[in-house]
């Protein structure tokens, strides 16, 4: 009980601190709003990588260091599908850019799911008895993924040029222009957070996942094929990460640094929230996203250009000093 209270206090303090710094730093409510929206936007993208990382770790004890690569691959596939040239050129088949974007996102999700399935079935399964090697293996896979991406799409970063409806629309508030697309992504992330939470709480597969986190062997003895559930969960986690990459691409473009950047920040989110805790991951994503946005604001025009990039790690160290097993972690 006291532990929960300490977590709540920590969350309130961090949020208060971030909002305070941001309020001091912004000149108008509009400025403040932009920072907030940008923070939530980044938080949702982080959540899309971190949720898979967290659930897979809780259920299977596998820390998938290739999770960031799925985000990166998602971004590349979506970019490729949306734009002329590249591997899949859909511009002639689907001239409508809005529809093409939807197709691009679906393609990215399918690619993520397929690659996730292959990784779990082909490479991870033989290693369930050797956890350290699983870690080393997913690390190796992330390197191979990076090199494959470089090989297919070269190292030059792509920035999004093909326009579509939502991407271009803005709305005005407090005299500031806000991107509708960002709001759309935040909304999408929120919907996903709730959907996954409901799935975990209410659905049969959710019950199996929660039971599997407690006692895998007993789940099997009830006649449930745990291995198949592992594959499904792992595949879903990768698909969600690829989805994140795809919807981030219109803003961030596609580059080879995406994978590592998002992996590290998501790991910070997962550890900070408490390994294996879903609510911890959701809260942690928002906190880290906001912290990055505030740091970006603060860093403008100063010498601390690296501040936003190292903010997640700083926040992580802070939280771990307060709560060694993360905000929602149980110290098992």
């Amino acid at each position: 009980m006291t532990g929960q209270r300490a977590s709540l206090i920590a969350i309130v303090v961090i949020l208060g601190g971030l909002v305070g710094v941001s309020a001091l730093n912004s000149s108008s409510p509009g400025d403040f709003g932009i920072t907030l929206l940008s923070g939530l936007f980044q938080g949702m993208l982080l959540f899309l990588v971190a949720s898979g990382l967290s659930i897979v770790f809780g259920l299977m004890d596998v820390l998938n260091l290739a999770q960031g690569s799925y985000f990166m691959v998602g971004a590349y596939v979506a970019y490729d599908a949306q734009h002329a040239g590249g591997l899949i050129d859909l511009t002639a088949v689907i001239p409508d850019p809005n529809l093409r974007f939807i197709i691009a996102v679906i393609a990215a999700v399918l690619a993520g799911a397929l690659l996730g399935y292959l990784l779990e079935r082909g490479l991870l399964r033989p290693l369930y008895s050797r956890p350290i090697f699983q870690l080393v293996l997913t690390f190796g896979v992330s390197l191979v993924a990076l090199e494959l991406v470089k090989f297919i799409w070269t190292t030059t970063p792509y920035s999004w040029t093909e326009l579509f409806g939502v991407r271009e629309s803005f709305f005005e508030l407090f005299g500031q222009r806000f991107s509708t697309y960002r709001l759309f992504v935040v909304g999408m992330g929120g919907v996903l957070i709730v959907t996954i939470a409901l799935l975990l709480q209410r659905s049969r597969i959710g019950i199996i996942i929660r039971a599997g986190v407690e006692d895998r062997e007993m789940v099997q003895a009830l006649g449930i094929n745990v291995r198949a559930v592992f594959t499904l969960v792992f595949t879903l986690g990768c698909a969600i990460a690829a989805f994140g990459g795809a919807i981030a691409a219109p803003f961030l473009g596609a580059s080879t640094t995406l994978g590592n950047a998002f992996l590290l920040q998501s790991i910070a989110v997962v550890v900070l929230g408490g390994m294996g805790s879903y609510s911890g991951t959701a809260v942690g994503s928002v906190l880290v996203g906001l912290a990055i946005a505030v740091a970006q604001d603060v860093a403008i025009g100063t010498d601390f250009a690296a501040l936003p990039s190292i903010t997640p790690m700083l926040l992580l160290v802070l939280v771990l000093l307060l709560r060694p097993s993360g905000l929602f972690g149980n110290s098992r």
Partner: protein
Amino acid sequence: MTPILEVRDIHTFIGQFHILEGVSVSVASGGITVLLGRNGAGKTTTLRSIMGLTPPTRGSIQFEGNPIQGKSTHAIAQMGIGYVPEHRAIFKGLTVRENLILAERKTGDYARKADFIFELFPDLKRLIELPGGNLSGGQQQMLAVARALVPDNRLLLIDEPSEGLAPVIIEQLIAAIQRLADQVSVLLVEQNFRVASKLAQSYVIIEEGHSRVNGAMNELVGDQSLIQRYLGVA
């Protein structure tokens, strides 16, 4: 009558421990058979070997005439075997209802069996929305048995149901197991001889990884020398 479960001369290793060195057990269809023996004799491992949790390296296991050794645990369970492990491995973070739903093999199993289960264990109905971890030891044991009753199992493997429970609760549990034995066959591991003698029609004694003696329970109850030799002190 053909036995529902026929275990023949199984050998099981855990790591390098040779735990079972030849265990044979036969469970009559519609009856309760109990595995007796001192601590560490290999009773629990026998149940786990049947479930495929510690697969035997030698010997054969047939369930309703079909070989099941070498199959994966979930496949064995799906053939119609329910497992109630020792220390009541219920899911503490799941509610009683979720624990029961989890055991469904077909959608609707739980709805179909709910009345029967709550008749056997009226307590559970009252506790249905509580997390399993909040239940008392006896209630957890009842949930563990109830969970094995949700799908249409034809054989239950029950490991030490009376361990650590108060006498009153044990009596309730005995009554419940006697009642459900009308519908399923049971292979029971039980340290408490009184409980075993009340429930089972036949017994198998396991000693140091070997099945030594078997027969009808009422014969064993009268045979003091046999009890002393395998179960008593000295």
